[in-house]
């Protein structure tokens, strides 16, 4: 029993990496995750990753922000302290629109972005769970959990055939900085 925990296929080229994913999947090798320096389109479909639902969060936050602002202005200008401006309506809806709009945008942006940070575990001081330091620079890395029935050599060969420039057998999951 080897001490290898994760096998990393390191690619120089995103297309070869996509090819690598295809090969692995054809041979029923489960892929743990893929790390890339830039977004690769089409990869989610291959890995069967569901669409992001952040859009729904954004919409709900927007509705919430707009409602809060509109209700607040309504309470202040119509209910709590109406100001008589030449006998005009206290409930002057057109005047409420700019601030309601601004808060809709504000809540959409902040709500959605913080949901993203929360869901992806991104926050200042979070220890980066990095498997290969070059995956944020110029390498495209496929990570495979080594705890499977498929022999490690087969995985290595598959990755090499697909064009991996390097295959790493890592004893620990993440690169530790210290």
């Amino acid at each position, binding site marked *: 029993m080897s001490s290898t925990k994760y096998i990393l296929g390191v690619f120089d080229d*995103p297309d070869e990496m996509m090819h690598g994913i295809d090969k692995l999947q054809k041979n029923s090798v489960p892929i743990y995750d893929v790390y890339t320096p830039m977004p690769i389109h089409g990869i989610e479909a291959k890995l069967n990753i569901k669409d992001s639902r952040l859009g729904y969060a954004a919409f709900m936050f927007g509705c919430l922000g707009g409602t809060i602002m509109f209700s607040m202005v309504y309470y202040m200008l119509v209910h709590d302290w109406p100001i008589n401006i030449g006998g005009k309506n206290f409930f002057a809806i057109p005047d409420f629109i*700019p601030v309601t709009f*601004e808060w809709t945008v504000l809540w959409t942006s902040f709500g959605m*972005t913080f949901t993203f940070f929360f869901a992806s575990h991104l926050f200042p001081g979070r220890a980066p769970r990095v498997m290969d330091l070059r995956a944020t*620079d110029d390498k495209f890395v496929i990570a495979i959990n080594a705890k499977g029935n498929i022999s490690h050599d087969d995985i290595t060969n598959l990755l090499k055939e697909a064009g991996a420039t390097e295959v790493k057998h890592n004893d620990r999951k993440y690169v530790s900085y210290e």
Partner: protein
Amino acid sequence: MASHSESIIREPLITGKDITYAKITNDVLRPVENMPGKAWWIGFSVASLGASLWVFAISWTFWFGLGEWGLNKTVGWAWDITGFVWWVGIGHAGTLISAVLLLFRQNWRNSINRSAEAMTIFAVICAATYIAAHMGRPWMAVYSLPLPNQYGSLWVNWNSPLIWDVFAISTYFSVSLVFWYTGLLPDIATIRDRAQGIRRRIYSVLSFGWTGSVKTWQRFETVSLILAGVSTPLVLSVHTIVSMDFATSLEPGWHTTIFPPYFVAGAIFSGFAMVQTLLLIARKVLGLENYITMFHIESMNKIIMLTGSIVGVAYLTELFIAFYSQNEYEQYAFANRIAGPYWWAYWSMMTCNVITPQLFWFKKIRTNIPLSWVLSIVVNIGMWFERFVIIVTSLHRDFIPSSWAMFYPTWVDVSVFIGSIGVFFTMFLLFIRVLPSVAMAEVKLLLKSSSEQAKKKLMDEGHVVPAEAEFYIASLEKFDSVEQSEYLKA
């Protein structure tokens, strides 16, 4: 897919030979990972001198009060609000590049969006300092917020565009900041993974633990798209509301319905001019000629020309409507602008904003770097005069001739303005020193499709219609970063 081939007739967005993903990282991070050169230090010294002048002049203002400015009872707004509107306008280009061009899938935004967005944030900070300063007692800013208080509560007046502006500018600033910083996360992670020691620790905290896994990238792209979607109407609303500060008053020269589109066009105009001013220098000093190419410069010049023409049409419309309205106050306001005591400001504005940008119709001029740079500064000057003309010439001769007055800036006014430019450049120079000035991840996306080398490969492999290849080669002639001799034999 990262590698679909783009039509050959589109101009390349990345020039140069042997560009690899690693080379992009190295090129972009050179100023961040090495000690800055002489040019940076000279720029930084001058900018921080300006910033010190700002600190001094603002402290002077707070200590002795607004009486130190040239304001009087008739002209109650002058350099302060001119400076405010000018800076907010400059900020608009960043959002336009990062949001509107993203929605339109304009890939040339990828290499300029980062610095343009940074510029937005710094410009809005400069604008906000004017708002705080013109209150005289800046701690009174708290009364622009709808907080419960001992007077009732007496709430803010939600019917007033000035309150809308508080919300517009603060939303604009914070949303731009979030947009910018989210986009920075992958690039900060790149710096982190290349750095050692204390720098690695700092960038590690700043990177929020970014790894670049599939799910994170997928969410990142959703967030970027939606932020772009909401920032687009936001940026239009901000300058619309700024224009309503004027347009909802009854002041002749201000009380016009054309103000919102006219202000928004002017904002984009001045913003692109400032991007041009900064990037033409930055690309040279930071050696980014292969990423910020002549195509980018020319595209921005075209936008400057277009928005400059819109602004020109707005000026003429204002004049026509003043005549056509048969309203003598409105007519006088414009006659006074053209030929009154501030005629020189009006004609500086006309020349710099309407006439000289028309030079960009000539391809020779819009692809000439020194001329583009000079013209971008001319636009900035012109747009400053536009705000000065709108504000001061409308105010200085009001409805009662006995209260007519002139505005003369004091040394404090001038110092606050020059100082704010110093503050802006100080922040910008610090930014290019510590953070990547080009969005590396987004530029890497273009490498296999829109780069010169990818297109050359297509041509060499003979996948291209010869007539199209000829067209493409002809379009490369203007590029200063393309090795022209490579294409002679083809």
